[in-house]
């Protein structure tokens, strides 16, 4: 249990996903803001605008912040550890 919480708290994802998350969330939030404004302007209701915007923000946070498995699809391929004797020999 503790190790699971620690895993979520640390939230490590691979480097490719980090880049993807950064770009995707920025684009998604910009589009969300525009869409929320347009729909609210057409419906003439501020409540609609902020409901759409708030709901979209929560959805994006849920999809991007925790370390989901789909964000860990390309883990770094570390090389094998060299043994102690081979290090001493060098």
């Amino acid at each position: 249990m503790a190790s699971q919480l620690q895993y979520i708290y640390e939230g490590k994802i691979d480097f490719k996903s980090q880049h993807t998350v950064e770009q995707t969330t920025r684009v998604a939030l910009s589009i969300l803001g525009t869409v929320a404004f347009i729909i609210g302007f057409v419906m003439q209701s501020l409540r609609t605008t902020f409901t759409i915007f708030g709901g979209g923000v929560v959805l994006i946070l849920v999809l991007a912040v925790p370390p989901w498995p789909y964000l860990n699809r390309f883990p770094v391929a570390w090389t094998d550890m060299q043994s102690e004797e081979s290090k001493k020999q060098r």
Partner: protein
Amino acid sequence: MYSSLQRLNNLSTFVTTCTLALLAAISLSSFLLATTPTGELNVSPVQMYDYLILRCDRRRRGVRNDKKPPSSNSLLTLVRLSLSFPILILFDGRNGLTTRGLEPGLLSRLAPPTCKLWSSFDCLILVIPPCDNDGDDATTTITDLRPLFHWNTKQVFLYLCAEYTNGKGGSQLDNEVVIWDRIVRRRQDARIRIENGQNKYYFKEHSGNFRNVSEAQFTLKYNVMPYVGPLTYGEGGRTKSKVQFPKRT
């Protein structure tokens, strides 16, 4: 983006930026949507009635519980007593008290609604002595303010002003007195019609009396209060002809 907290931090910063951009867009949009009110909008010439708040000594109020109306001598006595501050004494007009030509029903209707009622009194006295006077007026207004209500309108503040100049010769002052106001919160309430209305606030002239005062013009002004953005003002209408203040006899 290497940990959950870092992603949360990054995302919340960008969400804040997006929210601010959205609010700026909303406040700019109200400039596109703002229109002046159309349709019938007039403040018909007002009439003024002359009445006074009876001043009396603080010690004497709340004493009269008997049904006998006070004699005219005692009215004068009341007026002549120490004039500390103005209080409106309210009674109900069953005792047939004569008040120099003004019937009790009209007097009770003219009393401003902001006064306090003391239940120990039982007849209405409003005396018009030959000194200070307050103005009172009746207006008929039909106003259609629905174009002012868009998605960014929180409420519309309407107010009726009396504009006049007082003073003689070189020392003339422009006065603008608010005598009535109303807050309109919804589009459904934006059609306003007032007949035989009455000023909500005391209409008192700063110099003490209305003798050296020019004719008055009444204007209906509005102030649109948005959810996001700057306040905007406008004028809804004004009386076509100026109104004289009643002269003392």
